[in-house]
């Protein structure tokens, strides 16, 4: 069984941000991160952009409708 990542996360938050876990819902919210971690894991190796780093604002201007 994989170790529960929640207690180490709470300790890291306390260490880096000085913020204590405020309630049980917050603890459950951290557990919800496991879903996000899986999404990120699935993305690894699938994205390769040659124009990184890039400006989002420049992309907004560049991607305008040509005829608008």
């Amino acid at each position, binding site marked *: 069984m994989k170790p529960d990542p929640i207690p180490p996360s709470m300790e890291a938050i306390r260490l880096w941000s000085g913020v204590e876990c405020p*309630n049980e819902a917050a603890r459950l919210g951290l557990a919800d991160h496991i879903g996000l971690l899986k999404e990120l894991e699935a993305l690894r190796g699938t994205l390769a952009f040659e124009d990184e780093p890039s400006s*989002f604002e420049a*992309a907004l201007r560049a991607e*305008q409708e040509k005829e608008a």
Partner: protein
Amino acid sequence: MSALHELSMTEAADAVARGDVTATALVENCLARIAAHDGKVNSVIRLDRDSALEQAAAVDKARKAGKALGPLGGVPMMHKDMYYRAGKVSTCGSKIRRDFVPKVTATVLEKLDASGAIDMGTLNMAEFAQNPTGHNAHFGHCHNPWQHGYCTGGSSSGSGAGIAARFFYGALGSDTGGSIRLPATICGVTGIKGTQTRVSRAGVMPLSFSADNVGPLVQTARDAARFMRIISGHDPRDATSAREAVPDYEAALTGDLRGISVAVPQEYFFDGADDVVVKAFDAALDAMRERGATITRLSCPSLRAIAAYTAMISRAEGAAIHAEWMRERAADYSIHLSSRLYGGYPIPAHLYIEALSRRGPLLRQFCAEAMTRHHIVATPALRTRVPTLAETDIDADAANWSRFMAVSANTRPFNYLGLPTISVPCGFDDRGLPIGLQLAARPFAEARVLAVADAFQRVTDWHKRYPSL
């Protein structure tokens, strides 16, 4: 002329300009409706009754003297309580800022003042604009005017509920993950967020520097067009605001959909969708097709990455903005907010930076996938039927977490992409609550989404319906 509360914002403005109705009559009618019905809805935080009547009297006097009125002359409005007006309390829906008095006035409020709109006060909202449902532990939950006990959508809860209840004609909301489009959808009104950077955020409470947007909730796409023209454009007080010219959006409302191509992504937006929502969405596509649009269902593989990165940016930025209060005053937040903010702290910096740095490339990729041959992307704005306040209440039961978070699944990606996106009513579910159609276009193509939404509203009447209170 229709009953005063049935007028749209543009109809009300034009009626005042013609002299068919006075601004005072409009304000008095709004005040009477609020007095009669807001006890059930709870959309208002502060009502500036005397000030509203004074502003209306000044508009009527100016008109009588033959002076030209602004494009929103004499139209009563109220705004989400996070738009600062110097000297007036702006609670941001929170206990922490219950007595906060800003020293500056938001640029968007100054622009609305200059247009002749009447500011009647401030509206209920999610605490610090941080939830998609309309819960507020400090000022009381805002209730859906269509059915008590149901969500209004958030975070601009009072803006959506008040427009639906016909308490006023226009309201500012803000949208970081759907906070304009969700209350618009769930309350059965029209709401638009412009392209990221399109509208100034000076004097507006921040939630996420990268994803916050200012925009209106109104009855019709035409209302949204006039409203957006007034508030859009570069602002020297907001260095992030775009310098692109602001067109006359109302002039673009031709009602014609011939030659318009609509793309419907098949991934993501329909995951776990309720049948009644899908049916209403398909019927909306049929209505657009009958008006001349072509509909194409296609694949957008970039959506999975977009959805993952979207969640990270707003969580990390929200955590940064609230860090001091989370250390010193965590107990002064509602449970659902402190728990959401807490979730932002463990996000590694490199992933936040990755999410930001890939925003431009992913925007390019999404445009290539969905909008190379198509003008509009259409999706349901909310995948499911409107939930009740009880079944999404994290403060009452932490187990409601996943249902609460799911509410904004379909709106969030467009904040990451920064695209102009509108929600318009497109039906009702089996419990009599509204369903919304979401339309997005390329950057700075607000005119395109407004024109398509307006054309849709010319052949449907969902936007004209309002609840009996």
